[in-house]
């Protein structure tokens, strides 16, 4: 037997109740007696019994009513109820089953029969409780599992999110790598394109340089041939047919020959200018003082030597192309002589100085000067500030000077006033010690 099962015995007949109590007590149950329906309900409310033996026919609340009430209360509905009846009445029995009673026993009953029925229902109840406990345990473990599943799902979701993030970063990195690769490829392509463009441009420049050279050659050769014929045959006319021409005819022939001379000079100067641009600079140290003096005394006619006061201060040495530098001085000195010769007293003064890596050279004359308004024009090609009758020249000399000085990395400029002489300056980068 289990721990003493608590049994509520309900009967309004005292002998019957006493009998029940005696039998059950003897069988080892803990028995609580109740002699009315009201008392039975109160007892159940106070303390739940394991089983109720309930007499049907009682004064007040009868057994069926007690049974109905207990079965309709969720706290008490599971208590097994065995109805006790004085008669074997099938209808009563059915009514009892209908209100939820577990069993039915008729008076007078055998003690053994009662005990077997009581024990059976107690066992049933224990089994039910055990089942319920198991079910409850299952339910709770079910609930735990559900929670766990939910938690796992949430963890899985988080993992998946992390994975997605990781995948996203991976893709982003890949795409960044791709971008970088593409950028590098573009840079490479651009570089290649640039190299090709530079090569093309260089080839074009070389071609146009060649064309320029052949143009210069044609100019020197082809333009001169007809000029030679014009001058030559005019000269033959002058010499061999002079007696057939009057003075005016001879004068006109002179004009023809002078014009050919001018045109020849123009061609010569143009060729010199193009040569300055084309020829490669051959640098060597130059004693400018000696060069200037040599050029002056080569160029000066006896008239010039007599009229001019020519002074040269010590000039800084230069590093440059001697042929071209000689041309610079020739052009500047011949200009100075040409534009100063009309004066009563003529002076040319050449000086130089060094400052902050630059050598500056100056040639000053007291000649006819020029209008400072045109100071920018005088270095332009074919720019002349005087009428051609006044001074000879083609307007190329200073353009050549400018090109030569620029090719040497220097600057050239002039200062002048009408009637007050002119000064021309040019600079050259100072000669380095190791250049000498």
């Amino acid at each position: 037997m289990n721990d003493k099962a608590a049994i509520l015995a309900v009967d309004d007949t005292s002998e019957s109740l006493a009998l029940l109590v005696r039998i059950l007590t003897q069988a080892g149950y803990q028995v609580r007696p109740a002699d009315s329906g009201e008392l039975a309900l109160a007892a159940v409310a106070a303390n739940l019994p394991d089983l109720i033996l309930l007499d049907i026919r009682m004064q007040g609340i009868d057994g069926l009513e007690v049974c109905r009430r207990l079965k309709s209360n969720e706290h008490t509905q599971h208590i097994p109820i065995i109805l006790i009846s004085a008669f074997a009445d099938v209808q009563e029995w059915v009514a009892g089953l209908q209100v939820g009673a577990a069993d039915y026993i008729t008076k007078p009953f055998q003690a053994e029969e009662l005990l077997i029925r009581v024990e059976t229902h107690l066992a049933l109840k224990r089994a039910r409780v055990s089942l319920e406990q198991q079910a409850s345990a299952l339910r709770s473990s079910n609930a735990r599992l559900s929670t766990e599943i939910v938690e796992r799902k949430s963890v899985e979701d988080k993992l998946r999110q992390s994975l997605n993030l990781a995948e996203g970063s991976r893709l982003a990195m890949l795409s960044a790598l791709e971008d970088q690769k593409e950028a590098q490829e573009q840079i490479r392509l651009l570089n290649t394109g640039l190299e090709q463009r530079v090569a093309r441009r260089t080839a074009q420049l070389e071609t146009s340089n060649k064309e320029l050279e052949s143009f210069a050659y044609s100019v020197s050769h082809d333009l001169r041939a007809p000029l030679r014929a014009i001058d030559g045959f005019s000269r033959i006319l002058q010499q061999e047919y002079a007696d057939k021409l009057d003075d005016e005819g001879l004068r006109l022939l002179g004009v023809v020959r002078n014009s050919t001379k001018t045109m020849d000079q123009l061609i010569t100067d143009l060729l010199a200018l193009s040569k300055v641009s084309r020829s490669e600079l051959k640098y060597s140290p130059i004693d400018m003082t000696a060069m200037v003096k040599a050029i002056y005394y080569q160029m000066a006619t006896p008239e010039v030597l007599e009229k001019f006061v020519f002074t040269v201060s010590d000039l800084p040495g230069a590093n440059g192309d001697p042929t071209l530098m000689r041309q610079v001085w020739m052009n500047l000195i011949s200009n100075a002589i040409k534009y100063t010769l009309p004066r009563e007293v003529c002076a040319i003064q050449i000086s130089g100085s060094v400052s902050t890596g630059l050598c500056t050279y100056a040639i000053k004359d007291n000649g006819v000067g020029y209008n400072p308004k045109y100071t920018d024009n005088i270095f332009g090609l074919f720019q002349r500030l005087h009428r051609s009758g006044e001074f000879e020249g083609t307007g190329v000399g200073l353009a050549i000077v400018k090109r030569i000085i620029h090719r040497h990395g220097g600057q050239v400029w002039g200062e002048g006033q009408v009637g007050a002489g002119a000064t021309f300056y040019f600079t050259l980068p100072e000669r380095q010690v190791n250049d000498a």
Partner: protein
Amino acid sequence: MMHNPEAMVILLVEDNDSDAELTLRALKKYHLSNKIIRMADGQEALDYIFQPKATGETELRANPKLILLDLKLPGVSGLEVLQAVKSDPRTRCIPVVVLTSSTEEEDIIKTYQLGVNSFISKPVEFDDFMETVKNLGLYWLLLNKAP
């Protein structure tokens, strides 16, 4: 081979008629030669000096005392004529004076490399031209005796 050993034949190779006429006048004026032969292009000049034979060899037809050679000629250029004359042992000693209006350094260097005897540029001014022709003619015909 030579028709008259005393004749001082000058060969003028010049395509420009005006230049040729002026040169001839100058040479005649100073009585530098009694026989001047003018050829108008390089091929003509080569055919005149080296007459082609059926064997493929050439026969020397003329042996001028002086060749005045313009550089810029149509077809066979003056430089090619110069090279042909100076590379043949039979004609190597004929003085060749290159006459040109070009003053390009490259031309001057090339002609000297090919063995030119003198190089003069044709000045535009007629008087200078006459003077030049006179001087070079005198020099090469009278003073410079070819070995």
